[in-house]
């Protein structure tokens, strides 16, 4: 099965349509171990390094993909699209203008965008994407979401290193979704047999920029921080809700994507804070880890209001900026260790 890769800075692209077209939706996640030098030729040093890594990956791997879709998310998506168009060789480069708002007008627009996306895939790849196929891919997507919900819940009760949780999601985002169901079922069986939550670890809520490489999750573990809840797109936002399986599948997808908890790349600051508060009400948490990838503007803007609101409620919180690197940042380790001691 061939892959159609996508650049999605949160969880905005209805990847179910790609599955329904008979392709593997492959989320571009970059490679923290590879140099960003190829991207540096076209994108300056003060741009988000994750987005630069996505671009580098696309420069290297586009030949393996049948096409690339870019979904509107943060500012990097729409502006970098043009740079991608100029330098990346791909037979199919598509812009999916996910609306930024989520009211009824935006819903109508989202439906049109999904239909246009279907038309573009059908006409370019000579496939037919009927409602039945979309429904089937929604069903599989929901199976994945339910399995991830189950795995996510185990974080509070079992010994699940942070890396394992992130890897379960990362693998899901890049493989055939039917195979992902099988992998997640296997992981679920394996995790069920794990020992109980280790007594020396602190339970944390992780918020801020997406984390796309496990080495950073290791740093948290090294400091005895266990992430048991989060609001990341490569995280709970991906599976916090299910896609309605009855009715018009395009309407279902549009509603689902516009109604999942809002990330910093979309308006709804109060909603973001409320979502985090609801997590804190329902899950016992020792502290909050708020982190911002260097040059990731949407989360940097939100972090002050979000963190102040959570601190005002009496929660313990640490905030820091991190680089895009697999190397452990000793300064962060020192600060995190000191923070854990206060919990």
């Amino acid at each position, binding site marked *: 099965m061939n892959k159609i890769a996508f650049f999605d800075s949160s969880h905005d692209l209805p990847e179910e349509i790609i599955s329904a077209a008979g392709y593997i939706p492959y989320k571009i996640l970059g490679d923290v171990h590879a140099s960003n030098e190829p991207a540096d030729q076209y994108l300056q040093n003060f741009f988000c390094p994750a987005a630069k890594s996505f671009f580098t990956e696309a420069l290297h791997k586009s030949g393996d993909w049948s096409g690339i879709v870019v979904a509107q998310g943060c500012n990097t998506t729409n502006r970098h699209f*043009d740079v991608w168009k100029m330098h990346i060789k791909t037979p199919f480069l598509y812009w999916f203008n996910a609306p930024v*708002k989520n009211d009824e007008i935006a819903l109508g627009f989202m439906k049109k965008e999904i239909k246009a996306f279907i038309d573009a895939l059908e006409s370019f790849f000579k496939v037919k994407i009927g409602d039945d196929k979309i429904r089937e891919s929604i069903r599989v997507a929901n199976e994945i979401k339910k399995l991830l919900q189950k795995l996510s819940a185990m974080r509070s009760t079992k010994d699940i290193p942070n890396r394992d949780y992130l890897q379960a999601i990362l693998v899901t985002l890049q493989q055939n979704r039917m195979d992902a169901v099988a992998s997640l079922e296997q992981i679920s069986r394996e995790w069920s047999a794990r020992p109980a939550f280790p007594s020396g670890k602190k339970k944390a809520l992780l918020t801020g920029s997406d984390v796309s490489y496990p080495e950073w999750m290791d740093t948290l573990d090294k400091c005895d921080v266990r992430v048991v809840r989060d609001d990341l797109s490569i995280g709970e936002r991906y599976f916090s809700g299910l896609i309605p399986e009855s009715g018009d599948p395009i309407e279902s997808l549009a509603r689902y994507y516009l109604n999942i908890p809002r990330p910093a790349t979309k308006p709804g600051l109060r909603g973001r804070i409320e979502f985090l508060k609801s997590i804190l009400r329902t899950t016992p948490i020792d502290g909050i880890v708020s982190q911002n990838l260097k040059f990731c503007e949407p989360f940097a803007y939100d*972090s002050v209001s979000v963190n102040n609101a959570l601190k005002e409620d009496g929660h313990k919180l640490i905030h820091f900026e991190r680089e895009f690197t697999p190397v452990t940042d000793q300064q962060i380790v020192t600060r995190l260790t000191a923070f854990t001691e206060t919990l």
Partner: protein
Amino acid sequence: MNTKNTANNANIAKEQIKVEVLPHAKDLKSVMLYYLIKGELYSKLPWKKTAWTCAGFPVEFLWAYDMFPLHPENMSTVAAARKQSLRLIEHTEAMGYSRDLCSYCKTSMGAFDTGIKTTLGGIAKPDLVTCTNTICDTHWKWFQIMAEKMNVPFYMFDIPKWVSGTSEKKLEEYIDYVVEQFHDFSAFMERNFGKKLNEKKMRKTLATSTELTNLWREIYEYRKAVPSPYSAAETSASFFPLVVLPGKKIGVKFYKKILGDIQMRVAETKGTLPEGKEQFRLLFEGIPFWYRMRFMFDLARYGAVVTYEPYTYSFSPVKPSADVPFEQALRAVAKIMMDLPYSYNLERRIDYFNNAVDEYKIDGVILHENMSCRPSSTGMIDLKNAIQKEKNIPVLILQCDMNDPRAFAEGPIMTRVESFIEMMRENKKKRG
């Protein structure tokens, strides 16, 4: 600092060449005062309403609701010009905002929090906060935070992105989406303020606004003349009415006077530099360094004149005629919101710049790679390469910031400018 280059500086800038400003340039002061005083009045009188808004927003809408538009970005430029921006930025950073965020936003947040005077860049609490995401995400992120903080209604227009290769069919769909939001905005205004859109007022405002932008575009036609009668040393300030006062007669009057001065200069084959001194015609892309406006004047020392800036031109789109059916006018406004030269996609931007190089007889291009403004800096490397290749003229990328003086390293910047001047000199020689 490199001492070899300092010596070079001395050789290049032997002469003190001064920009000769237009006779009516000083009238801008009264236009600005009008704006500031009127803004203060609207903010103080309980029955009057004000709105914060941003670049790329059709201000005519606000006038049609009798809402006075206050521009935080614009007030940030005032703060920078009055040498206040650094302390305000640092104030905001102390509140937890990252050094990497837009310095307009941080200046404005600092100005609001410290409550400095409007003449220094301060801004009053509005009744409404409204913006778009057409130019950048910063606008809505910043405005949303402030609306929450001030507990003021917030309305944001979601403008789809006209990326490279967007089809006409898609554009029409995008326009439909924006027009629907105009109607939604009307309902929002009625709900929150009991105000209905005054169509007659809107048409009148659009008519005046059209007059204003037409005048500005006419002024730019004259800027094509050699020697250039008007440079960025002046336009960087005089484009102000286009941003904050479209639809107001006071701006029209000012531009008529400026245009008169320019026509006179062109008729006499006079330029903004003294006779025979214009050697290099430049295109400057990006927001000027507001805390260091002298930069534009300093270029005169090398016989260089900034003849064209896409940034200042951006604020003068062709507006819909006042007599077209209202729905058609709304569609035209929606298209304008997606179609600002400042946010052109890369393919259009390259064509646009290449045309400008020809039309304005440009010898070299300075691109301000603005660390505050990632949207406008994206694609700049490709833009540079394309202009150099297709137009065979030097292009200088200056990494800096429009409001944060910490980013302006005087020595290295001027050294690079001087090398650039030398490159233009060599290039002109080669080209004969």
